[in-house]
């Protein structure tokens, strides 16, 4: 694998402009002082209770995501390009969803093969022909971006269902500002703290027409045992909206109400962090206790907005991903600003043959998987693992896609042996309301803390960093 692009150091010894001030500061700061603040940061995280749960880990149900105190920095110029690309991408995702559940122009034009939609378990026939308020499907998108060189931003994944991680973006900044006021004084860092306000106004803007002029928004969580529960309560708090569980809501004559100490109160917009499958036991999984019976009929009646809409999974599906550049062109008539990772679709015999021949060099992902589970990283895998995976792949080729192992960019990171480059990605959060699309400058930078590792997922030993966009 080629030497990765480092976001701070230019081969030959120079520094990229965005990092010059940080480098000076690092030189002036003794390592012990840095270590002290690192420990301080960990203590703060633990006390605030910013934890997540790792499924299948019985030892500790709550863990901290490791936080790296060295910020990841991008210039304002870079951000402008990225921002434009993200808005374009999310606009296309929304138009695609609207089309798939209504006229299906894109299928007739044969840009995307029909069976990828109709045989896809995340396609929701219940949404066919259903009008969603203000035609917005993906109100909150978390687009995973990686870099391999100074020029391009590459989309790794479009998260259009219930993307998480924004609380880390906000808390990381809070903690950095508390611990490193001197470093902030030396940079002009664009603030992220407006995110909750932007989110609330986006959510209020998409209230159904039957709502009052002061629509009531609530955040629906699966409950305290969910891995992202901290984030749910954090956001509800920052937005000043009720954090509800399924059992707090009740549907009566196709309207949604929450049970309060003063009786039932109508809810107009639900920012839901419960997956489609569990949201209404009458429509989807009947065994779900997390959802609200009858919610889908209130939705069909147009009395409630769900953010994100039901059925958005069809847009961020890994099988659809490889068509995204065409999707952007089809709806917007523009060249995509953000690139895609070259992707082999194992459902296509030619691609499959190539993948089977090059397993040791490729990353193979389950089309419906997420969180870094169930994937093969060829270059890091043993022979036996590769062989086992080969059999799986042959049995069910349509369940997989393959991509080259990208040399993800690196950023300086605190390690046991001092600062060292570690691979990173970035998840900016794109908010779409009835009229505008906004992105808070920054996002969640995830970092693979193990040397050489490319897996940034928190469930697999990844950490996070504060992301700075310089306001030049």
């Amino acid at each position, binding site marked *: 694998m080629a030497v990765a692009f480092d976001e701070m150091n230019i081969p030959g010894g120079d520094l990229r402009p965005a990092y010059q001030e940080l480098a000076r500061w690092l030189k002036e700061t003794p390592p012990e002082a840095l270590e002290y603040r690192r420990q301080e940061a960990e203590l703060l995280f*633990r*006390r*605030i*209770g910013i934890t997540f749960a790792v499924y299948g880990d019985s030892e500790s149900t709550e863990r901290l995501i490791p936080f790296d105190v060295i910020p990841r920095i991008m210039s304002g110029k870079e951000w402008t390009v990225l921002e434009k690309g993200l808005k374009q991408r999310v606009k296309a995702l929304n138009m695609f969803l609207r089309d798939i559940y209504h006229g299906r122009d894109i299928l007739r034009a044969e840009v995307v093969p029909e069976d990828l939609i109709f045989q896809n378990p995340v396609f929701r026939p219940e949404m066919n022909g259903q009008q969603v308020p203000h035609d917005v499907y993906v109100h909150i998108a978390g687009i995973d971006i990686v870099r391999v060189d100074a020029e391009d931003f590459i989309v790794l994944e479009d998260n259009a269902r219930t993307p998480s991680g924004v609380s880390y973006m906000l808390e990381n900044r809070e903690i950095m500002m508390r611990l490193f006021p001197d470093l902030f004084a030396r940079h002009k860092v664009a603030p992220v703290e407006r995110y909750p306000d932007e989110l609330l106004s986006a959510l209020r803007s998409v209230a159904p027409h039957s709502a009052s002029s002061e629509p009531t928004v609530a955040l629906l969580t699966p*409950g*305290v045992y969910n891995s992202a*529960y901290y984030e749910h*309560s*954090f956001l*509800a*708090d920052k937005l000043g909206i*009720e*954090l*509800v*569980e399924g*059992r*707090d809501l009740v549907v009566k004559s196709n309207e949604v109400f*929450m*049970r*309060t*100490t*003063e009786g039932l109160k109508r809810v107009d917009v639900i920012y839901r962090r419960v997956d489609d499958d569990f949201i209404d036991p009458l429509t989807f999984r009947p065994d779900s206790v997390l959802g609200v019976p009858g919610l889908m009929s209130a939705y069909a009646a147009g009395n409630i907005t769900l953010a994100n809409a039901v059925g958005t999974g069809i847009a961020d599906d890994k099988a659809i991903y490889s068509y995204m550049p065409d999707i952007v062109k089809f709806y917007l008539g523009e060249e995509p600003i953000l690139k895609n990772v070259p992707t082999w679709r194992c459902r296509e015999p030619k691609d499959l043959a190539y993948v089977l021949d090059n397993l040791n060099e490729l990353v193979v992902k389950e089309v419906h998987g997420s969180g870094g589970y169930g994937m093969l990283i060829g270059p890091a895998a043993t022979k036996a693992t590769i062989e086992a995976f080969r059999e799986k792949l042959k049995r069910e080729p349509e369940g997989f896609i393959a991509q080259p192992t990208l040399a993800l960019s690196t950023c300086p990171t605190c390690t046991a042996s001092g600062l060292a480059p570690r691979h990173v990605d970035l998840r900016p959060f794109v908010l779409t309301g009835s009229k505008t699309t906004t992105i808070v400058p920054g996002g969640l930078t995830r970092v693979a803390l193990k040397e050489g590792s490319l897996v940034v997922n928190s469930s697999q030993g990844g950490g996070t960093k504060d992301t700075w966009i310089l306001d030049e």
Partner: protein
Amino acid sequence: MLSRTAENLYWLARYVERAEYLARTIDATLRVTALPAAYIGKTNEWDSALLTAGVASSFYQQYEEANERNVVDYLSFSADNPSSIKNCIEAARLNSRSVRTALTSEMWDTINSAWIELQEVWSKGTSTREDLAKFLRFVQETSLRFDGSAYRTMLRNDAYWFSRLGLHLERADNTARILDVKYHVLLPEEEHVGGPLDFYQWSSILRSVSALTAYHWVYRETLKPWLVADLLILNGTLPRSLASCYENLTRNLDQIGVAYGRQGPAQRHARGIRNRLEHSNMNDIFQHGVHEFIQEFIADNSRLGEIITKQYLI
């Protein structure tokens, strides 16, 4: 507010208050059992501790007899005892997580850091008296800190009032229980053989509700059983007296009633109990029977809990 949120706040306050009360009970029992037998008589103080905690029957399903080791363990750490200090703190933290949005960061920090701190005590236990004393003190301090942060940082709205309801209802229950178990040593002197024996019992009761110093300030007298009873039942200046708890319960319920624009059975029931306390004096209570009076109170108090639940929390 959400009914579930109100319910969680209410129980959160109850759990914290209960944990503190248990810690005080253990503390007081340790003191009194450290005295030579001649001073405390033949009663099994550890058995009384179980009774005041309301867990005697479940305890005796597991153990033959009550002694310091097994009662301290059962009340502090046992996972089988739903109202052990450990389970109270665990439940308080779980409730806090569920209603984080309704808590101030100071309240959350108190519960969360106590929970983190106590993880070590749970895993190692307390091997020495000193460890145990430290643990009991820590639990009491946690409750003080929690109560103080609620008082100083919460908005004065329904969230605050519901949490206060939990606190005072639990407190009233605790005070009433200790009176129920110890009422026989509180009978007027002429009916009872007084002596050094009872003196330590009385001071132990007062200690477990943190009222020993208060007693002297209020009555400026040596310990007298009917005055101890008067202090814990009728004296409105003592925060843990039944009268004071009901003063607070009616006030908080009234505030909820005003904010929501309507009164209900909870308000009426609480007012009824408060009126009874206001119009009683110790003579009447002794005439009527302390034991009966207390038992009636315990039933009335738990009835109020049920009414509040029905009216607001489900």
